[in-house]
Every structure is written in C-alpha cells, then in structure tokens.
C-alpha cells in the first residue's frame, strides 16, 4: 500500500469515528491532520508514514475519542459493546470482514482526497470533486450546479430603489446560486442589473423596519451587478456561487457556503478585514483598530477568499 493510500485510509477511518461532529468541523479536523502529516513527512522523509500514523497520532478511534470526549460526545463505534459485536462477526464470518475492508478501500479511492487545496492554481476540491472551486477558469461547481460566466438564453432584469427616501439603514441580499459583482456608489439608489435564465422569476424587494431585502433566492444561476449606496450597511448571504467585491467603502458582511469571494480593496482606504474559510484557501487580509476603518467580514465554509 503506498503512502498516499495509507494516509487517506487513516483519515477515512478517523472521519468515520468523528461522525457525531458536524460535517464542516470533521472536514476541518481532517484537513489539519492531513496537512500536518504531509508537512512532517516532507521535513523528515526518513520517518516512515506508518510511524507517523501509528505512533505520533495513534488509533483513529482513540484520536477521535479525544475530540469527542472534550465535547461530551461518545465515539460512533459504540465502545465495549461494539467491540464484542465486531469480535463475534470476525470469528463467525471472515468473508464479511474481508468485504468490509474491500468496501472501505473502494470508498477511499472514490472520495479520495477528502480535501485537496492547490494554492498555486487557485483551486479547492472537496469530497472527491463534489465541490470544486476553480479560480483559474472562474468557476464554482457544487454537485451538478455550475456557476461561471457563461449563461445561455438569458434575459436582463434591471431594478433600483431609493434607499434614503425609505429610511433604510441595512440592506440584505440573500441568494441561492449566483455570481455577484458588488460595488459601492455615491448615488442614493440601490441598483441591480441581473442576467437570468429565460424562465427565472424577478428579484423580490421587501422593506421593513429600516431593512431592505433584495431577495435573489429564486433566481437560479443568475449573474448580477449590484451597486450599493455609500452609507448603507450590507449583509450578503449565499449558498453557492461566486462574488467579486470592488473597492468596498461601507460595512459589509458576506457569508457563503460553497464558492469563491474575490475582493479588490481600495488602496486609499483603511480596512478591518475579518476573513474566515473553514475548508479551502484564503489570502492574507489586514485588520485594523482604526476608528475610520471599513469593516469587511467574509465567512466561507467551503471554497476560497482571494485578494485582487
């Protein structure tokens, strides 16, 4: 068994034992441990992978137990009772055990690698390609959904709202799957220009208690350019997609499950960036305690946050 397979099999077993944890937390643990194993192995190529896995880390069940017990959780394999059941199966049916081992190896190949990060090529691939964020071709793929610059048979939708007249203090923009280009404007109106598929619905606008919601949820695979008036705090929440933010000049809070956020900071502006990527890549973004700093918060679960 070559080293890559040994590592992936170990991580697969660890991932199984960590089952009581949320998927994103499991993925983060696996990424951290895999990264350690690879870096440690590169620093000391003479140290066999088996020793790193068995001596430095230990049994996946034991390692997982430490993570879980700290959170008051039990390992998924069921402890002593599970061991007796497994023993009975192993003694009674050797063929069943061999089948489990073979199925495990197939699962390793199928889902391998769990997370693959290539900073040079700007690519993040998770769960064997189920989520694929590729900066070079500007594409985000989640399952069968693909978000890129191409949009066949599209119609254009334009809209705007005078935010100052309506006493708006906060703009919210939820979306499902889209590509958004966001910038700020000195004009009074929130403006959006969307290219959507021919059968898509129009964006919904709701105004309530000083909050304007530009709901892009029902626009599947839309491409929108949004210009936000200066003076408006904005929250953008998306499931899948790609976002480019040019010269942010007002407080911005972006959260995205799967995809890519690219930010072009204004060199004349001081920023306080708070950027978090659970699984993937992020560039360095400066923080600042300066009172005049523009606060930009970005959270991406799977994907990348890049600086232009």
């Amino acid at each position, binding site marked *: 068994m070559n080293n890559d397979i040994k590592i992936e099999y170990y991580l697969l077993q660890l991932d199984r034992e960590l089952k009581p944890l949320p998927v994103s937390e499991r993925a983060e643990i696996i990424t951290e441990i895999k990264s350690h194993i690879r870096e440690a192995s590169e620093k000391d190529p003479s140290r066999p992978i088996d020793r790193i896995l068995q001596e430095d880390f230990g049994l996946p069940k*034991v390692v997982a137990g430490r993570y879980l017990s700290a959170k008051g959780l039990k390992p998924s394999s069921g402890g002593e009772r599970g061991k007796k059941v497994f023993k009975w199966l192993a003694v009674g049916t050797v063929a069943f055990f061999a089948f489990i081992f073979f199925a495990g190896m197939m699962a390793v190949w199928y889902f391998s690698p769990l997370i693959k990060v290539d900073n040079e090529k700007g690519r993040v691939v998770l769960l064997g390609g189920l989520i694929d964020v590729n900066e070079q071709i500007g594409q985000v793929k989640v399952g069968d959904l693909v978000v890129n610059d191409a949009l066949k048979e599209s119609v254009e939708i334009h809209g705007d709202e005078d935010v100052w007249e309506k006493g708006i203090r906060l703009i919210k923009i939820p979306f499902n799957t889209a590509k958004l280009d966001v910038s700020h404007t000195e004009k009074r109106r929130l403006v959006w220009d969307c290219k959507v598929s021919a059968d898509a619905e129009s964006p919904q606008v709701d105004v309530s208690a000083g909050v304007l919601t530009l709901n892009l949820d029902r626009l599947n695979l839309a491409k929108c350019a949004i210009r936000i008036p200066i003076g408006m705090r904005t929250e953008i929440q998306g499931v899948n997609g790609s976002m480019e933010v040019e010269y942010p000049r007002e407080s911005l809070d972006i959260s995205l499950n799967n995809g890519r956020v690219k930010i072009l900071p204004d060199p004349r502006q001081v920023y306080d960036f708070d950027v978090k990527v659970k699984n993937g890549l992020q560039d360095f973004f400066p923080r600042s305690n300066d009172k005049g700093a523009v606060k930009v918060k970005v959270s991406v679960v799977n994907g990348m946050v890049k600086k232009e």
Partner: protein
Amino acid sequence: MQLDLDNWRVQVKKGYLELCILLLIRKRKRMYGLELLERLSDLELSLKEGTLYPMLNRMTDDGLLASTWETEGIKGHPRKFYALTRKGLGALSEMEDEFNKMVELVLKIQK
C-alpha cells in the same frame, strides 16, 4: 510501595502542559500545530500529535484560542494558526498566578 516516578512525572506534566502551550502561543503571537510540537520537543516536553490537536480543538471550543487558516505561499499544506483570545489571555494570567503560588509554596516547605 515504591513511588513510580515516571507516573508522577506524567501526572505533573499533564497539569502544566496546557499552561506551557498557552505561554508559547502568547510569546509567538500565533503558532500552528507542527510548529508548536517542534517547540515543545525543543523544550523536552514531548507530546503526541494525537493528543495535541484535540487539545487545541478543545481550547478553541472553550474560547481560549482563536484559529485562522493560511495558505498564502504554502504549497499544498494549509496551516491552521492558533492565537490567544482576550479570554485566553485572562485565563493564562490566572494560570500563571496559580502556578507561581504553587512554586512559592514548595520553596517555602523546602526551607
């Protein structure tokens, strides 16, 4: 019954290991796992990887540490850096006081 010194050492080490980890991270501002293990090894405070990472995870859950991922300039090895939070700094300060009191007590008894 003879005192098992090795076992005693293990038990004592468990007590101040978390203190040492927080001190190291405070000193360097932020560290990632492999870096922390290497530094602990230099100080002859050996710790297994399978113990350190769950410990860092627990300290993050407890709010003592905050983590950020960095990948810039690092080929294929994203690194999870840990830094002390404000709560962590406060907790560390209290732990240091407690530890110093214990040392003073032992010195006092020894006189």
